[in-house]
Structures are given as structure tokens and as C-alpha cells.
């Protein structure tokens, strides 16, 4: 199909093209909802069966890092929304700035995720790889506060008393943790790629009040990824924190 300027050949008008693209992205997001939905179902069923072990697993996560990432991601959503706005009102420079900001925040998020994964690795909390819920409290490092570790040890032992299979069930928790956050991170990486492509376009000044569909479409995607995290954060990090 031939392309005339910004209008692809299968369309009659730019407006039709824009509408189509937006609808396409929304429909795609529907599939994403159900894609993650399968994971959420697996999570729900297992959590209700093994709430103790899930609580214990959740308590090993670093709430500060998780909370920080939540803030970062919501901020990136704001900058993304602002990028769309800048394109709509024709502030070409701002488009680039906001897009770069979004990309930066996204990268920070991923960086923090790497730190967290590394921690889990150090604590023997990777399912299938010598997984041991007790490892952390039994092998404190020099940097750990001994008081905290004592509390942690007590808590872990309590969990084992209630559910002797804590290792198996905690492994389930971490399998889900890695599946969910991993899939989420994968979406972030794809999103980052799209942002790079947009930033290039914005340097070329392609996005104007008349033509800003790509920014808007990628924006939809980015916000969706944000929404997933909005759910993941309490579901994964905040189980049984009141202990």
C-alpha cells in the first residue's frame, strides 16, 4: 500500500487513521489485561491457600525500594501525559524534554528492579536455585542490623511452625513474584524502546497538533504498564505488613 505523507494507503483520511490507531491500541490493551489476568488468578488462588507463606515471602521484599519505584513510575506517567499534552498544543521542544524524562524515570525503575532481583539472588530466594526461606536470617551479613535480623528470624520460625511447607509455598510466592514483576519489567523494556523511537521523532519535530498519534498511542501503553504496577505493589509488597 502506498503511503502519502503521513497517511497510510489503506485509509481515506488522517482522522480515520488516528481513530484506528487509538482503537487498535485500546484493543491491544484489552488483551494485555487478560494476559496479566491469568497471572492474577494464579496469584489469588495460591495466596488464599498459602497466606502464611505468602506473608512471609512478602515481608522479605524491600518496601522502600518498592515504594520508591511506585513513585517513580507514577511520575513517569505524569511526564508521559505531559508529553502528549505538549504535542497537542504544539510545544515541540517540551515534547522531547518530557519524553526524555519519561525514559529516564523508566530506566530508574528498571535499575531499582535489578537491585531488588540481585538481593533476592543473594538471599537464596530464587525459585529452583537452592531456594531457602531461612537462608537470610541464618546468614546475616555485616551490614545487617542484628536486632532486625533477630526479629526476622523469629518471624520466619513462626511461619515455619504454622506451615512447615513454607519453603515450598514461599517458592510459589516467589515464582509468582518473578513471573509478575518480570513480565511487567519486560513491558517496561518494550516501552523504553518505543520511547527511544518517539524521542528520535520528536527531535525531528514530527509531532504537531495535527499529527501526534504515535505519542498518544505509546502514552496509552505506558500508562497501562503503570496501572499494572499500581496493583502489583500492594499485592506483592504489602501482604501482612502489620505484623
Amino acid at each position, binding site marked *: 500500500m502506498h503511503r502519502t505523507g503521513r497517511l497510510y494507503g489503506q485509509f481515506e483520511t488522517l482522522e480515520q487513521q488516528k481513530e484506528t490507531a487509538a482503537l487498535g491500541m485500546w484493543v491491544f490493551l484489552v488483551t494485555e489485561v487478560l494476559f496479566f489476568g491469568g497471572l492474577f488468578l494464579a496469584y489469588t488462588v495460591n495466596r488464599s491457600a498459602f497466606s502464611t507463606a505468602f506473608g512471609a515471602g512478602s515481608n522479605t521484599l524491600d518496601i522502600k525500594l518498592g515504594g520508591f519505584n511506585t513513585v517513580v513510575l507514577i511520575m513517569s506517567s505524569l511526564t508521559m501525559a505531559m508529553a502528549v499534552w505538549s504535542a497537542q498544543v504544539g510545544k515541540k521542544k517540551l515534547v522531547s524534554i518530557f519524553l526524555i524524562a519519561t525514559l529516564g524515570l523508566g530506566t530508574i525503575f528498571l535499575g531499582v528492579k535489578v537491585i531488588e532481583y540481585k538481593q533476592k539472588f543473594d538471599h537464596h530466594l530464587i525459585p529452583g536455585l537452592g531456594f531457602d526461606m531461612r537462608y537470610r536470617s541464618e546468614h546475616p551479613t555485616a551490614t545487617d542490623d542484628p536486632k532486625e535480623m533477630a526479629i526476622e528470624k523469629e518471624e520466619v520460625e513462626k511461619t515455619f511452625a*504454622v*506451615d*512447615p*511447607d513454607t519453603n515450598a509455598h514461599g517458592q510459589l510466592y516467589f515464582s509468582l513474584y518473578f513471573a509478575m514483576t518480570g513480565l511487567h519489567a519486560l513491558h517496561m523494556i518494550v516501552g523504553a524502546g518505543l520511547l527511544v523511537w518517539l524521542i528520535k521523532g520528536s527531535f525531528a519535530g514530527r509531532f504537531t497538533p495535527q499529527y501526534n498519534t504515535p505519542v498518544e498511542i505509546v502514552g496509552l501503553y505506558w500508562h497501562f504498564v503503570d496501572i499494572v504496577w499500581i496493583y502489583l505493589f500492594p499485592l506483592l509488597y504489602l501482604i501482612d505488613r502489620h505484623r
Partner: protein
Amino acid sequence: MQSQLPIYPEQASNFAPQVDALMLFITGICVFFAAGVTVAIVVFFFKYRRKTPDAVGITIEEDARLEALWMIVPLILSMAMFGWGAVVYVDYRNVPRDTLDIYVIGKQWMWKAQQPNGLKEINECHVPVGRNIRLILSSEDVIHDFFVPAFRVKMDVVPGHYNTMWFRPTKPGRYHFFCSQYCGTNHALMGGWVTVMEPSDYAAWLSGSAAGNANPVVAGEKLFAEKACSTCHVANGTGRSPSLNGVYGAQVLLADGSIVVADEAYIRESILQPNAKIVAGYQPLMPTFQGQLTEEQIFALIAYIKSLQSQPVPATGAGIAPPTGKR
């Protein structure tokens, strides 16, 4: 065994006539519709065959009443099929009170059955005619399925779950049973025979096949002492632990206010994960026995707890568990 081309298998349980009747009923409805549609198509096909190459059919206005008719009539008939099917199914899923319990374990690719007196069989299962039989199914590896065509019953055997099925054999004989859930290489070989015997023959068979000390109630009693259950669970119910006398089949009030029926699965859970459900009025003191008991030992403990009815336990000689009347 059977005539050349039978269309239904032998009827040898209480469910068989019900299922066959259901089958006939649904077949009747379906033949009615299938025949109606086919006849109409064939008749129209010949009758309205195109007469000239440029002929056009006669337009018929659509008719909402007609559409409604052919939605409502099938709907009503569907509900009849659903209703009848539901009755049979609910009957099948709700086990009656006085069953003779046989434990069945499926593993790749064989069946192990254990009679109430502990007698073990492989790929065979003996049952008395006329008694309600309950099979309690568990799997050691993948999903299997216990299927007896002559009884028209089947139930999946799912690892990690306890499934039960029941039937009342009505005709002595030997009937094939199959594994009906695909379970790997020798799935097709994972079958055997159910032998239905007169009750007297059955009792004779049981006692003849020296079961002796394999009686699970006896074994369970021993375990109950060995594993120190008896230190906490004393018969008169004093102390910090509930008496287990008569608990089987009774309704238990839990600390969170809900009520459960104490059946095998509940007792099993109480042993393996005692704190999953706490009996109202008691503290979660009981330690877990997860990993300390084999499946067979758990069966034995359950069998023993089942035998702890308030009335004296009937002679275990015949090996038939006492009817539990409290469900």
C-alpha cells in the same frame, strides 16, 4: 462376554439404569431435532431445486414470533435435560451415610486398593453387592481417573486432592475398570477388574485373605499412641485438646465461626496442617505432622479416628467399617 454389537454396556450399579434412561431421553430429543432439520433440508433441496438459471427465490419476511418459538422450545427442552442430569449428578456427588470405604491410590500405571480391613489389592477391587461403596481416591503422581463403565461412574484422581465417588453394585460379576484420564505411556494398560460378590462371599474372601494385623484401625490405634496423639487427645475431652470421640462425620464449629463437616479431608488436614482450621474454644497448640507420616499411616490414623464412635465399635473381624450415622 457380550453380544456382538451391544449399544450399551452391562447395567451393574444403581446409577446404570438412571444414566441409561437419561441417555434415552436426550437421544429422543436430539433425534427429534436432527430428524426434523434433516428432513426439512432434504425436502426443500429437491422441492425448490432451481427451475431456470436466472430464477430467484421468493423472499419470506422474517417473523419474530417464529424466532421466539425456536428459541423457547429448545430452551425448555434444554432445561429438562439439565434438570434431570443435575439430579443424577447431585445424587452421585453426595455420598450416602452408610458406605463401605475403600481407599484407592492411582500411580503410573497401576491401581492400589485397600479394603477397610487393610487388605491390599493391585488392579483389582472386590466389593459386596447391594452395599453403598465409597472409593476415596488419591494419586501419587499425575492425574488419573477411575472409570467403571458397567457402573456408569468415573472420577478423576487428582494429586493433592481427595476425591470421592460412590455406587451401589447391583449385580455380582466381574467388570472392567479403566484409567480414563490420560496419564502417560501406559495409560491404556492402567485398568483392572472390579469384582462384585455376594456379601457372604465377600466377607469370606476378606477373612480368607489373611488381613490380620494389617487392619488399619489397629494400625491407627498403635500410631495414635506412638505419635503421642493420645497425650493430648484424651477420650473424655478434658484438657486443652478436643476429644476425637465421635468427631468423624460430626459438624465442627471453628474459631472463625464457620462450620465444617469432619470428613477424611478435614481430619487429614487437621493432622498435616493443624492450624488451618482451629476448633472453636481451643488454642492452635497442635504440632504439624507433615512429613512425619506416610500416606498409609494417615489412612490408618483416619480409619482409627473414624472408629472412635461413642457407641462401642462393632467387631472388626469382618473388617467392615461401622456405618457412620452423623452426617
